[in-house]
């Protein structure tokens, strides 16, 4: 069982597994939306006194913060006990494109040339990690959800606003990939 789970999962296993997580949360009476936790943390830190947006009872959202804690543990367990020795099967076209951007493909989940503290000490690294994080926080709160809340939960409930949000995700992602990355990495 462990060795089977350790192999890379095909998309038709992963997609239903994600739907399964959403189903479990629905049957627990909760809704799947990870980025709500960003507001929950701010509320928990007591920022509701200064900023009305965070003035809500975060304890009612405590379940989602436990879910967040679990996701960290899950990431740890997956790489320590369910690690596959096979390199990531990235498409050769993507490998070639990234090579042109001086981002060599190393077969890991994340490019080691970017995901390290030395890179973070460069202007580019700060922009990608701190700036990228800022845009994730600001954008998901503005749009009222992220991939789990809009792309999965919202589209499953046929919500037109979620479709608009997902179109936005792609506008931002395509702009960054095709216009910003050549500028950043070259």
């Amino acid at each position, binding site marked *: 069982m462990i060795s089977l789970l350790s192999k890379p999962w095909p998309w*038709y296993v992963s*997609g239903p597994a994600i739907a399964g997580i959403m189903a479990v949360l629905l049957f*627990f009476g909760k809704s799947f939306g990870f980025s709500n936790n960003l507001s929950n943390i701010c509320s928990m830190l007591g920022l509701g006194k200064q900023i009305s947006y965070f003035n809500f009872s975060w304890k009612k959202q405590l379940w989602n913060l436990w*879910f967040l804690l679990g996701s960290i543990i899950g990431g740890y367990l997956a790489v320590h006990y369910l690690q596959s020795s096979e390199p990531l099967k990235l498409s050769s076209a993507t490998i070639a494109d990234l090579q042109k951007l001086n981002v060599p*493909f190393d077969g890991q989940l994340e490019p080691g040339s970017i995901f390290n503290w030395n890179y973070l000490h460069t202007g580019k690294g700060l922009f990608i990690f701190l700036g990228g994080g800022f845009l994730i926080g600001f954008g998901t709160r503005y*749009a009222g959800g992220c991939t789990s809340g809009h792309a999965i939960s*919202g589209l499953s409930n046929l919500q037109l606003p979620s479709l608009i949000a997902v179109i936005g*995700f792609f506008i931002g992602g395509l702009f960054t990939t*095709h216009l910003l990355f050549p500028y950043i990495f070259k």
Partner: protein
Amino acid sequence: MRAIFRAVKYTVVGILFGIVMTKSEAVSWYRIQEMFRFQSFFMYGIIGSAVILGIILVAIIKEYRLKDFYGRPIKLAEKDKRWKKYLIGGSIFGIGWALTGACPGPIFVLLGQGYTVMVMVIAGALAGTIVYGLLRNRLPQ
């Protein structure tokens, strides 16, 4: 006792989420690049099959008015009908998603995997959340 049980329950579901996100490779910066370059069906297959199953599940819940484990009717959030915030907010998030290769869940999953640089992404995300909280009433909704 109930509080502890609840904490364990949602932590376990979170652990499953962290494992699924890792093994699906949806946390991979490379996979997100592949997606935004339309060079593989992989990520579209994951999101598409999750959504198709989700649509079927939600339809069944609504048709049979299913209740949750506590006997309460399952409520599904209706998003309000304004559109500007979804398009503008979504686009801003999309830039951050492509830059870091991570959406909010994977940021924390990657931290658990040992990518400690993610603390900077978390710091940035909390700063962005606070700035949104401050500016909210001045932004087009």
